[in-house]
C-alpha cells in the first residue's frame, strides 16, 4: 500500500514530467524561430551594404569608373536601397509572430501550461498588434507586403486572445483551424521573397566580386611584390569563400524545416493532449533548430569574412 509521502512524490514526479513535455517543444521552437529571425534579418539587412561594397570594389579596381550618388536620375548602389529598412523589419517581425503562435499552440495543447506562460503569450502577442497595419502602409513601394496583411491579421487575432482554462479546447481548435493556414501562407511568402529576390542578388554579386578580384590579380601580377601578391590572393580566397556561403545558404531548406516543425506542432496540438510524448514533434523540432543554427552560423561566417576583407 502506498503511503502519503510516496503519493506526494509520484504526484510531483508526474507534474515534472508533464511540464518537461510542454517546455521542450516550446523551447526548441522558440530557439529555432529566434535563430531564423536573426539569420534572415541579417541576410536582408546586408543586401543594401553588400551592393554598396560591390560598387566601391569595382571603382577601387577600375580607375576609369567614377563614384556618384545619382546616375541617370536614379540613386547609385552607393546610396540606393534594394530593400527598405521598413520592409525588412515587418518581415522579421512576421517570423517572430510565428514563434508566438507556435508557443501558444504548444501551451494550449500541453496539459501543464502554467498560467504565467499563458499571460506572457498574450502580452507578447499584443506587441504585434500593429504589424498588419505596418504591412498595409508599405503596399505602394512593396507590392508583396499586401499578401502578408490577411494572414498576419488572423494570427495576431489568435495570439492576443486570453488562454482561459474553460475555453481551452475551443481555443485550441481555433488555433489549429485558423492559425495553421495563416502560418503556412506567411512561411510560403517569406520563402518566396528570399528565394526569388534575396538569393539571386547575393549569389550573382559574390560571383562578380570574386571574378573581378581574379581579373585584377591576373592583370597586375607581374608588377606586384610577393607580399602584394599574397595579400591579393588572400582577398581572392575570402571572396571564393563568400561565394561558397552564398551557394550553400539555402533559405528554402530553413523554411522547409520551419514548415515541418509547424506542421508537427499542429499535429501535436490537434491530438488534444492525447499524445503528450510527441516523439515526431521532438524530432521535427530538432531538425528545425539544427537548420536554424546552421543558417545562423553561415551568416556569422559571412560577417567574419566581410570583417576580414575590410
Amino acid at each position, binding site marked *: 500500500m502506498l503511503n502519503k509521502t510516496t503519493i506526494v512524490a509520484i504526484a510531483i514526479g508526474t507534474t515534472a514530467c508533464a511540464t518537461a513535455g510542454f517546455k521542450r517543444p516550446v523551447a526548441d521552437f522558440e530557439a529555432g524561430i529566434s535563430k531564423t529571425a536573426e539569420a534572415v534579418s541579417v541576410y536582408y539587412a546586408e543586401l543594401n551594404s553588400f551592393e554598396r561594397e560591390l560598387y566601391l570594389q569595382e571603382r577601387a579596381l577600375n580607375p576609369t569608373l567614377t563614384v556618384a550618388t545619382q546616375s541617370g536620375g536614379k540613386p547609385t548602389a552607393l546610396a540606393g536601397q*534594394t530593400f527598405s529598412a521598413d520592409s525588412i523589419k515587418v518581415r522579421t517581425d512576421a517570423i517572430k509572430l510565428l514563434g508566438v503562435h507556435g508557443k501558444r499552440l504548444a501551451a494550449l495543447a500541453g496539459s501543464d501550461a502554467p498560467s504565467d506562460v499563458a499571460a506572457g503569450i498574450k502580452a507578447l502577442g499584443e506587441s504585434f498588434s500593429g504589424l498588419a497595419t505596418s504591412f498595409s502602409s508599405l503596399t505602394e513601394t*512593396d*507590392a508583396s507586403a499586401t499578401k502578408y496583411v490577411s494572414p498576419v491579421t488572423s494570427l495576431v487575432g489568435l495570439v492576443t486572445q486570453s488562454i482561459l482554462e474553460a475555453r481551452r479546447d475551443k481555443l485550441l481548435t481555433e488555433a489549429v483551424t485558423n492559425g495553421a493556414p495563416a502560418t503556412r501562407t506567411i512561411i510560403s511568402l517569406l520563402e518566396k521573397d528570399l528565394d*526569388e529576390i534575396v538569393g*539571386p542578388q547575393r549569389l550573382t554579386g559574390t560571383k562578380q566580386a*570574386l571574378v573581378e578580384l581574379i581579373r585584377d590579380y591576373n592583370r597586375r601580377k607581374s608588377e606586384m611584390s610577393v607580399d602584394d601578391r599574397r595579400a591579393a590572393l588572400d582577398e581572392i580566397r575570402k571572396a571564393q569563400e563568400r561565394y561558397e556561403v552564398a551557394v550553400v545558404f539555402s533559405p528554402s531548406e530553413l523554411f522547409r524545416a520551419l514548415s515541418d516543425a509547424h506542421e508537427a506542432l499542429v499535429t501535436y496540438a490537434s491530438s488534444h493532449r492525447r499524445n503528450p510524448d510527441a516523439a515526431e514533434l521532438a524530432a521535427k523540432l530538432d531538425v528545425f533548430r539544427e537548420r536554424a543554427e546552421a543558417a545562423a552560423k553561415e551568416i556569422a561566417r559571412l560577417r567574419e569574412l566581410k570583417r576580414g576583407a575590410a
Partner: protein
Amino acid sequence: MIRIDSASLSKLIVTCFDLAGDDALSQAQRDAWMTTGKRLRGALLNILTAQFENGTAKVNEANEELKRINKSLKTAVDDLEKLKDELAAAKAMVGTLDSLLKLAIAFV
C-alpha cells in the same frame, strides 16, 4: 502576377562570370563575358522585384529564352563558334529585360 525567372537569370549571370574567369578563352572573349555578366546583373537588380500580369507574353518569352540560353551554354563551352552565338544572345537579353520594366505593374 508573374515574375521573371530569377533562378534562370542568376544561372546565366554566374555562367557569364565563370567564362570571364576561364583561361581557355582569349582576353577579349573574357572581357566580353565580364561586361555582359555585369550588364545582366544590373538588369537583374532592376527587374528582380518587378511583377507582371499573369500571362504577359513578353515575360513568358524572356523566361523561355533564358532557359534556352542556359541549356545551350552548357554544351557550348568547348565550341568557340557556338559560344559566340550565345554571347550575342546573352547581350540581347539585357535589352529584353530592360524593355520588360515598362510592363511591370508592381515591385517587390
